[in-house]
């Protein structure tokens, strides 16, 4: 009786040792395998991901999570490369954009320096030179502003803003520009007062940039509206356009992004990027929609809680 119990116990113990031994072996193999593959991943720029030698314990979960991290890392690397490339290209084109009006101004000045020039022409040319310098100034301002926003160096003062009034004020500043463009915009501003929490200057800039964008790129059918809806202040600026395609919509808020390949117009591609940045800082969203030939941007900012 005792003997069979003893034999039984011995067998059970042997069995248990065997099972544990195998498990240990599997763990070791798996870890060695993972370590080897990680060396490769560390040294090479590769799409490869970790694989499993044998499923044991939670090692497969570890592998999965590591692969996720690697995936994210490569994604951000790619994004970074793309952004750097876009950034470098922008620097080149911005310097070109700045150089052009300066060269033009210089040209006019050289003409003006000639003695035989009649005073009327001289005045005209002087005005042109001033205009060119203003253009350069504008561009530089936009660039510097964006750089400061990125570095979070803007001064930001949150206060209660009466959206309707501020909006109307800003829109009216562009009256002359619309007259010049020969197309009066349809403007709708709701009467009921509503407020948001944000920086005054930033809000003005948002509206400014939206309207500027419409003026520069649009071809008519301007509609500018403001109303409060579902707890949000909703601003919408839309215009007719033929220079934007569906594929551009997703990228329109990207910094330096512009569909003007010829760079014939003076855009830095930063206007809408600034709109989004400011909007997001006030807790809202900016969204672009293209329906046929009608392009519109809608900005939603949460209303200040009463």
């Amino acid at each position: 009786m005792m003997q069979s119990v003893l034999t039984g116990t011995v067998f059970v113990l042997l069995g248990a040792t065997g099972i544990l031994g195998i498990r240990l072996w599997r763990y070791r193999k798996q870890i060695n395998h993972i370590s080897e593959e990680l060396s490769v991943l560390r040294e090479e720029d590769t799409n490869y991901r970790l694989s499993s030698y044998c499923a044991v314990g939670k090692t497969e979960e570890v592998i999965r999570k590591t692969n996720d991290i690697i995936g994210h890392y490569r994604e951000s690397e790619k994004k970074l490369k793309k952004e750097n490339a876009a950034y470098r290209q922008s620097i080149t084109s911005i310097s070109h954009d700045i150089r052009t009006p300066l060269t033009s101004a210089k040209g006019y000045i050289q003409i003006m320096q000639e003695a035989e020039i009649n005073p009327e022409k001289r005045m005209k040319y002087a005005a042109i030179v001033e205009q060119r310098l203003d253009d350069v100034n504008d561009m530089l301002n936009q660039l510097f502003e964006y750089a400061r926003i990125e570095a979070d160096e803007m001064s930001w003062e949150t206060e209660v803003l009466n959206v309707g009034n501020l909006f109307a004020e800003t829109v009216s500043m562009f009256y002359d520009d619309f007259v010049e463009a020969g197309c009066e915009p349809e403007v709708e501003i709701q009467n009921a007062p509503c407020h948001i929490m944000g920086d005054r200057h930033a809000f003005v800039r948002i509206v400014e940039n939206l309207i500027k964008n419409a003026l520069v790129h649009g071809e008519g059918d301007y509609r500018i509206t403001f109303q409060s809806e579902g707890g949000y202040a909703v601003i919408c600026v839309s215009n007719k356009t033929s220079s934007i395609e569906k594929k551009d919509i997703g990228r329109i808020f990207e910094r330096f992004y512009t569909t003007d390949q010829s760079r014939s117009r003076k855009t830095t591609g930063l206007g809408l990027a600034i709109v989004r940045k400011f909007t997001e800082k006030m807790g809202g969203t900016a969204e672009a929609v293209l329906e046929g030939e009608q392009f519109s941007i809608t900005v939603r900012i949460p209303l200040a809680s009463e």
Partner: protein
Amino acid sequence: MEKSGITERKSMDYILKTNNLTKTYGKTNAVDSVSIHVKRGDIYGFIGKNGAGKTTFMRMVAGLAAPTRGEIELFGKRDLEKQRKRIGTLIENPGIYPNMTAEENLEVIRRSFGITDKNAVKDMLAFVGLGDTGRKKVKNFSMGMKQRLGIAISLFRNPDFLILDEPINGLDPAGIKEIRDLLLKLNTERNITILISSHILGELSKIATRYGIIKGGALIEEFAAEELSEKCRRCQKLAVDNAELAVTILEEKLHITEYDVPESGMLRVFGHLDESARVNRELITGGVEVRESYLAGQDLEAYFMDLLGES
């Protein structure tokens, strides 16, 4: 050598480099001393007639056949067994089990290689456009669908290098365009280098960045896509009896230096195409018999046919 942190990533010169790779069957060399160079990011077009040795070469690189002579270097290294984990291949017909569904076929691959991502199969099927095949067995697939499954299998382990042997064989034009778009996407978005063989030159010329021409098992030319457009330039072709004299006249009398002599008795003048009549006159008065003179712009097909056929 253990280093903490991420070591500086190596960028090897060539993804694939072979050195006098040879395969002998009996008395013939199916592949004869082929040394090709495929750079990272290339789409390398392998061109040759049927039976020229393209498939045999690719099988050697893929590890399916052992070379008789010569070396292969993958990713700059010689330990091929390990390096081949990073390549995906589709050689001749795809290796699939006809009595299983597409999902089951990929599941076999997933398990065989220990890929832990449970959604990998579904994602890959969606990626190649086979996401809705459900329980349909592969033997009931159309040719295009089978090819797509083959490509799915070759992409399954996130390769850095794809070896595709006639992947558009048997596809309809829509299918061909799909594959072409897919390959371009893989090349630009995932930085996958591709070695692709085909005898449909038009297709290949749309995406290839480098070409390798195989004839009779040997690599007769290797050049970049830009060089190809160079070679196919518009020119004035002349068939003359005395090429040397003609060349002298071109240089001395006409001051033309842009020409070449592709074969004896043939002359190609690349510039001064509007003066072709004058060229004719000068050559004839100079004592050269001009049998033929015409303006030609070689298209790719013609150029390759020349290389593969008559030469």
